[in-house]
């Protein structure tokens, strides 16, 4: 690998000598001879709807949405669209967080303060425990607050409010009806972005899946983001909504224009297959897609790809049905392998599909380290590691 790196660096140096304007961003480059670890081509990936027709064919959409039109949107625009629908359709919806009023540092709340007023879309002081606690208080008095934490890496100051309060309020209120904070949604950008290093890369979802009372959702695309976010806002339970920030601008597709919801706690089979099941959510799905395309070509196999979508409470039925069919399974996520979402999914599969398994359940995930700046390409699951794991489970 070091050879690849140094030749990559030489290539970059050559380019920079030729034309200073065409400087290669070294942190975004890939090895020149790579066949597997090449950047995702969002313009051609089958995981995105490249035509209006394919976007509207989605059986999960409401009839109204399916009869409507589509707009090409990236993920931040789809989020913005969902927030706009939510604010328009329910006066109880509030949107706030740090720097939300001017449109947000990722542009997700663009124009919403001017359209819906500064009483409903506003900045809070820079305090995650404060703004999440504030959101819980508004929710227990009947509002539907959508709180934004600027990066998932900064949710930890609010951990007490989320774990001890948001998740437990309905339970401790008992039969005192309406004293819950089910109207609450907490949005946060998460996951690797190429150069986010320690505090702009984390995927803390498994920390929330260990907390009864929360729903944890990660969308993979603009269409999914819109439908799942509207479902999260409408949900009677508090929802942690993690938005893969690398997809904000990169993933562009046709998104139904109407307001629609997609089901929570329901996985989606993205591609049918009989030999191996690959389970993931969020950004790594694109790597999985690339890996299985190469594997199917090279190894003459059929891989089934499943997007968990809701990480907790998760859709065991869809997963078990697939594994019972394929007998081989790989779980892929960016966050550290130990006690990650993959651990829970693997353990449940082992309990439910023991007699059907033909290879050990595999996890391709972040290594047991932090997200160091220069090392991201070696830390997070890439196409090669997923490809290699598919190969290994087939050979087992």
């Amino acid at each position, binding site marked *: 690998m070091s050879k690849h790196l140094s030749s990559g660096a030489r290539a970059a140096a050559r380019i920079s000598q030729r034309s200073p304007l065409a400087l290669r961003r070294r942190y975004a480059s890939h090895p020149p001879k790579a066949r597997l670890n090449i950047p995702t081509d969002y313009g051609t990936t089958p995981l995105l709807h490249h035509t209006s027709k394919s976007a509207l064919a989605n059986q999960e959409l409401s009839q109204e949405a399916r009869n409507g039109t589509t707009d090409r949107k990236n993920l931040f625009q789809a989020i913005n669209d969902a927030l706009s629908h939510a604010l328009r359709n329910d*006066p109880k919806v*509030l949107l706030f967080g740090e720097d939300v009023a001017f449109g947000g540092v990722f542009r997700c709340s663009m124009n919403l303060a001017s359209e819906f*007023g*500064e*009483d409903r879309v*506003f900045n*809070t*002081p820079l*305090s995650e*425990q*404060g*703004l*999440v*606690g*504030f*959101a*819980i*208080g*508004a*929710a*227990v*008095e*009947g*509002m539907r*607050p959508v709180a934004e934490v600027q990066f998932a890496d900064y949710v930890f*100051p609010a951990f*007490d*409010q989320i774990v*001890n*309060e948001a998740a*437990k*309020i*309905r*339970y*401790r*209120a*008992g*039969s*005192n*009806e*309406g*004293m*819950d904070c*089910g109207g609450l949604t907490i949005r946060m950008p998460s996951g690797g972005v190429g150069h986010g290093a320690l505090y702009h890369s984390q995927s803390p979802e498994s920390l929330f899946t260990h907390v*009864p*009372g929360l*729903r944890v959702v990660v969308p993979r695309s603009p269409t999914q983001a819109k439908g799942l976010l509207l479902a999260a806002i409408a949900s*009677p*339970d508090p929802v942690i909504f993690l938005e893969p920030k690398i997809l904000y601008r990169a993933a562009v597709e046709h998104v139904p224009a109407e307001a629609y919801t997609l089901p929570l*706690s329901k996985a989606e089979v993205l591609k049918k297959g009989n030999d191996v099941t690959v389970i993931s959510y969020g950004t790594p799905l694109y790597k999985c897609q690339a890996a299985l395309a190469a594997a199917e070509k090279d190894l003459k196999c059929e891989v089934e790809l499943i997007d968990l979508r809701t990480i907790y*409470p998760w859709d*065991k*039925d869809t997963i078990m049905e697939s594994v019972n069919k394929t007998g081989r399974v790989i779980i892929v996520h960016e966050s550290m392998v130990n006690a990650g979402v993959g651990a829970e999914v693997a353990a449940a599969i082992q309990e439910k599909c023991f007699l059907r398994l033909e290879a050990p359940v595999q996890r391709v995930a972040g290594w047991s380290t932090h997200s160091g700046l220069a090392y991201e390409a070696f830390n997070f699951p890439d196409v090669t590691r997923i490809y290699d794991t598919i190969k290994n489970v087939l050979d087992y």
Partner: protein
Amino acid sequence: MASKRIITALGRNALAQGTLRSKTRPGKCSNCQQRWNSVSQKQGSDRVQFPGAVNSRFSTTLRFERATEEDAMPTYRILDQEGQVVDKEAAAPDISDEEALKLYKDMVTISIMDIIMFDAQRQGRVSFYMVSAGEEGIAVGSASSLNHKDPVFAQYREHGVFQYRGFTLDDFMNQLFATKHDTGLARNMPVHYGSRKLNVHAISSPLATQIPHASGAAYAMKMQNQQNPTEEPRVVACYFGEGAASEGDFHAALNIAATRACPVLFICRNNGYAISTPTLEQYRGDGIASRGVGYGIDTIRVDGNDILAVREVTRRARELALQDGGRPVLIEAMSYRVSHHSTSDDSFAYRAKVDVEDWKRRDNPITRLRKWMEGKGIWNEDKEKELRADTRKAILNAYRKAEKEKHPPLSAMMTDVYAEPTDEQREQMAQLRKIVEKYPNEYDVSSFDGGVDGLDLDKR
């Protein structure tokens, strides 16, 4: 000096708002302060106009501002320790005899229940208890100035708020004994009361977490007050001790309440101790009140043993909180925790018994109001004896009744985690039922309503 400081702070805010109001662009929210719009430095100005401090005067004297004990914010009172009105010139306390009697009876009820339940815990009848001795005046007095519909967020030593709002002795006992009639469904430790009917949110153990909730709920009130102008406007009341005020949530809550102009009353019970920690180890400023001013919040300190003063301060604070579309107010009510922290604490391990006895004897909210009522001729020794005997009897009746009740059905262990039980939960309850049925001698289901059948999640 302290009051001067408040005035300066208020003046600074008014000035800031005034400056900004004139600069507010049409179509912009007038409540939203936009300091970053402050004008750039004028030539020859005697004031700084940085965006972060728009009206600070220049000085060539290098002086650090220092809080000293002489600066302590004054403590408002109406009655002295003998139950006499201190300011003879002032109008008589604005309270009917009937209301004064209610306040008194509520305080006495709480204090007798405390003694009985403290002993009950000592005998192992309930798992835990916390008394509110010495602080009955703060809870009952402030509650009496709130509207019944004002949402309340409490810490755990505010039994008087529940009592004043109409929590019955049965309600208290059902929670303490975790019976099937406990609206909290026997999930919370004793003293963690909550009531939808009375608009008091269920108490949780983590300290100070309720303070930002109160800010958010007050923002909801503000929005709802705007949307329903025909209904009586509401504020939120939030209680916490001086120890909890050291938590980050206190800071977060006061700051966001100020910036979002939320109609919320922050009521701090400063009773001198957080378990064993005296206030000297809790903070070095002028109590909690001095901090309110720093957040731009109108603040007052009141004698918490003077229920009439607490009542009056809360009434005025509530009016203030509703002005100009809403604003937070901080009340620091001074008292002394004459009891142990809880049944798990022996406070004589860290403070002298003689001090506690002295406080009990010298001054407490109950005897102070009693002396005032006796001075008015509406109370006497006979009435006192009768009230105490009747109250004790009523509490013991509720106690005995609750003690015999069953716990809720075992399904309550699993419900209300989500709005609807998940498939995983249903599966787990079925597993648990199998185990309980397979090993009947290992589990006592008889004290739960419905016994083993209570393990059915769908029966509810």
